[in-house]
């Protein structure tokens, strides 16, 4: 007959030792509870605060990331010559139109200098979200962007929740991530 009781005293002892050592290690290495309310330090990584920046838009306005606290922000690094960027722009525009009134902001950052080419691109794809110019690559360096497209999903508290490197992102991906963040309390 099959029995599931430990087979011997040694088996019992081994189980007890593994159980106790495991419990002890878990207790000893408990994650420290945050003692401050300042939130995580800034870094371009999931779980950290989104590094702050101020950039000029294509139409001459200044936008500071910190000023958008309380909104869900999608930061997208792109370029006019990048094929996956072109492929995901219509989806970004769709999502922007669908969720803008609920508190979504999309910041599309480009490091290119040729504003005529950027304007033509924006016209071609009918983009209505802010296009930020980062010709000095300040934001790109802060966010350690190695290639385009690279996208950061930032929650209402200013914390990066997902990073998507490469593309194109599907509309389903954009909608699902944005919906999740919008549902969270401000």
């Amino acid at each position, binding site marked *: 007959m099959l029995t599931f009781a430990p*087979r011997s005293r040694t088996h019992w002892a081994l189980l007890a030792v593994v159980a106790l050592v*495991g419990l002890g290690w878990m207790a000893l290495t408990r994650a420290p509870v945050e003692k401050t309310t300042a939130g995580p330090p800034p870094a371009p990584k999931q779980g950290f605060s989104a590094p702050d920046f101020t950039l000029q838009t294509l139409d001459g306005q200044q936008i500071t990331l910190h000023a958008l606290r309380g909104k869900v922000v999608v930061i997208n690094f792109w370029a006019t010559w990048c094929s996956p960027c072109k492929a995901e722009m219509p989806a970004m525009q769709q999502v922007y139109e*669908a969720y803008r009134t609920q508190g979504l902001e999309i910041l599309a950052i480009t490091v290119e200098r040729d504003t005529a080419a950027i304007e033509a691109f924006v016209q071609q794809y009918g983009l209505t979200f802010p296009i930020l110019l980062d010709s000095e690559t300040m934001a790109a360096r802060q966010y350690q962007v190695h290639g385009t497209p690279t996208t950061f999903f930032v929650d209402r508290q200013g914390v990066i929740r997902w990073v998507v490197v490469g593309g194109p992102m599907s509309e*389903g991906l954009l909608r*699902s991530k944005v919906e999740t963040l919008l549902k969270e309390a401000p």
Partner: protein
Amino acid sequence: MLPYLNIGPVMVQLPGLALLLGVWLGMELAARQAVRLGLSGERVVNVVFWGLGVGAVAARLGYAARYPDAFLASPLSLFSLNPQTLDPWVGLVAGVVAAWAYGQRRGLPLRPTLDALAPGLATFAVFVGVAHVLSGDAYGMPTSLPWGIELWGAKRHPTQFYEVLLTTGVLAWVGEQGRKARGDGTLFLSTVGLLAAVRLFVEGFRGDSVTLSYGIRVAQVVAWVVLLAVVWLYPFWRAQASEGHPTTSAAPRGAASRRKARGAKTRRKSR
């Protein structure tokens, strides 16, 4: 940390590449171990293929089911290549069930097949660690220890390197034990147990753990339960192997029945 390599206009994601390499090398080692245990290497590799294939499809469907509005608005998103729209737990369960069903259908005995997969599992674990080194994921808590590494704005425990070092040790051990494996499933159990122990240990230094109350780390609890299950189960499997339990037979059911049929035919002829 080297997450991407720009080759001309193409941005190669090195962590993803490391994972693919881990799957490929893991399947190679699993196939070799399968042959050593008297199984069909091709069938054992197919177990992995079925697991991965069905797992990937189920993971996408599972994710879409969680966000029906998003995917109803854009049904073509179901076919996108974005790994961010996968539900890993649904994928894992479906993949394991599919792999098991394929093995059953092809007459692969459970425990020898698991032993054949053990070196592949250990190899994949090493490459998961390599992917973490490259991406900077699974990072450690801040530390003042001399071997701490600068990452994400602080000097941290190099948990990714701990992971690679320890899983490489597990792989070396599995490689050594694999030569003596009898196909009773204990090589697989040992591998799972050791990998769980590595996770239990390394997770204690992580700076990005998901926690329960009082800072108890979820991954440590899961690894602890798995480790206890392995320690509990090991003597039973060992004993059943020496008693000749049917699931420990190294010969595939199909091959065994074919041999039996051939034997019967030969006996009939000789009469």
